[in-house]
């Protein structure tokens, strides 16, 4: 078997972050998070049932109460993990899905905040996923806060950032200090590379190590069952990754 590709490593990293979840929701157009969730489900089979809701998918959508049900479920505590991205993500975990520069005439203007204004606050494990790791994306301070990374006392907050996964590294988030903590660097890079390409300051975990590659059994699951399942929703993505594997 060929070694894990970068994307397969990301999928395995995400599956690790989902250890123990009962229900994970995945936004539209998110093949790597969806694959991570499918891998988690495959790894847990026979021990624990993992539900996956993929927004916009007819097959992976058991909701029957319209657009509201995802948000209701999340507010009820029935969703353990969700994925968010961001045109900008800052060192306090604030995310910006609206645009750079002065609002309202943002440039670039991105689509908008979607459900982040609630989900970031009530889903216990929000995994921030953005492949591009650059000072343009990972900024000191976002230009517009679509959803805040942390909240003070007096704000009901059962959810928030659990990790930040990029093509370069894996960060945890320290809610008390409101700072990201570098927990793993992908092979071929060092902490200095991460610092050079990150616009915010962060801490380093004492046990910082290279993010592990999936073992052979896991890799085989990814290339077999997970990509087969993923192809139902993301056929072009699977064609592309299978071509490189």
């Amino acid at each position, binding site marked *: 078997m060929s070694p894990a590709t970068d994307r397969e490593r990301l999928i395995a990293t995400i599956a690790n972050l989902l250890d123990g979840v009962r229900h994970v929701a995945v936004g539209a157009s998110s093949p790597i998070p969806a694959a991570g969730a499918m891998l988690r489900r495959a790894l847990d089979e026979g021990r624990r049932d993992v539900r996956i809701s993929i927004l*916009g998918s007819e097959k992976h959508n058991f909701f029957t109460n*319209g657009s509201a049900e995802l948000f209701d479920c999340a507010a009820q505590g029935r969703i353990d993990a969700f994925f968010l991205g961001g045109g900008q993500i800052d060192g306090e975990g604030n995310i910006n*899905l609206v645009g750079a520069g002065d609002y309202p005439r943002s440039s*670039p203007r991105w689509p*908008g905040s979607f459900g982040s*204004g*609630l989900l970031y606050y009530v889903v216990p494990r929000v995994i921030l996923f953005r492949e591009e790791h650059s000072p343009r994306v990972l900024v000191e301070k976002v230009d517009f806060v679509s959803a805040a990374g942390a909240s003070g006392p007096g704000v009901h907050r059962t959810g928030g950032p659990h990790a930040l996964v990029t093509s370069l590294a894996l960060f945890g988030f320290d809610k008390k200090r409101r700072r990201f903590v570098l927990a793993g660097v992908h092979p071929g890079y060092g902490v200095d590379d991460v610092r050079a390409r990150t616009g915010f300051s962060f801490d380093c975990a004492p046990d910082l190590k290279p993010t592990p590659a999936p073992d052979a059994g896991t890799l085989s699951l990814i290339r077999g069952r997970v990509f087969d399942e993923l192809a139902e929703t993301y056929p072009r993505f699977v064609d592309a990754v299978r071509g490189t594997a």
Partner: protein
Amino acid sequence: MTDFISLEALAARVPDGAMVAVPADYGGVAMAATGPLIAGGGRGLHLVCVPTGGLQVDLLVGAGRVRILETSAVTLGEAGGAPAFIRAVQDGALTLRDATCPAILTGLLAAQKGVPFIPMRGLIGSDLLRVRPDWRVIENPFEPGDAIVAIPAIRPDLALFHAAEADRDGNVWIGRRRELALMAYAAKASLVTVERIRETSLLSDEVTAAGVLPAIYVEAVAHAPGGAKPYGLWGEYPADAEEIARYAAAARTEDGFRAWLDRFAGAPSPAFA
């Protein structure tokens, strides 16, 4: 009772300045009404995207028909950003009311329930709250010191959407796309385009009745087979991703936008805004 009319007559029921709720890409967009709306509907519209917008919103914005845009996002999905929306934002041609999906759904729910507001969690510490002075932070009356955001009712003049079927009484089958019901409850009246009109009542058996929006909310129905295209309609036909991508490419220029729209509408479109 519900009127059965043409797409043009339906579009003509959208007056200048109307607040119109429209569904998200996946939720039954009345695309076939878009051309008639640009040709003969109102100007200066206040669009409410439930809870996000796509191609229809981009067309209406690009044609200069939108004054206020209330949305959680505008996107063409895999085809990328919505070009006319982005241009209008950067030109300052729109009054933007950026939101988050559950805030729009909460505002409509308040209208459904006939109350001035409903509270929601989240939002505190965001710039959404800063740019939406119409949202208020209040104290939870049951727990001193607990701040929560009150979202005011959104009461559209009209809801406009596409569904699979209507019956002759004006009942509309929406299935599990219940945000269409939410829009209709909240709005003063709904204008609906449908794939098919059936002669037997949708309420005559409990299995179809479960997916029905009753006629009381439906002011008018227009028959429009394929009326969501190039978007898809659940259980009917898939979206035409290639066509949406062609639009995304064409609409990068004003001329390309207009050419695509003329072809889509089947006729040259009138002056924009």
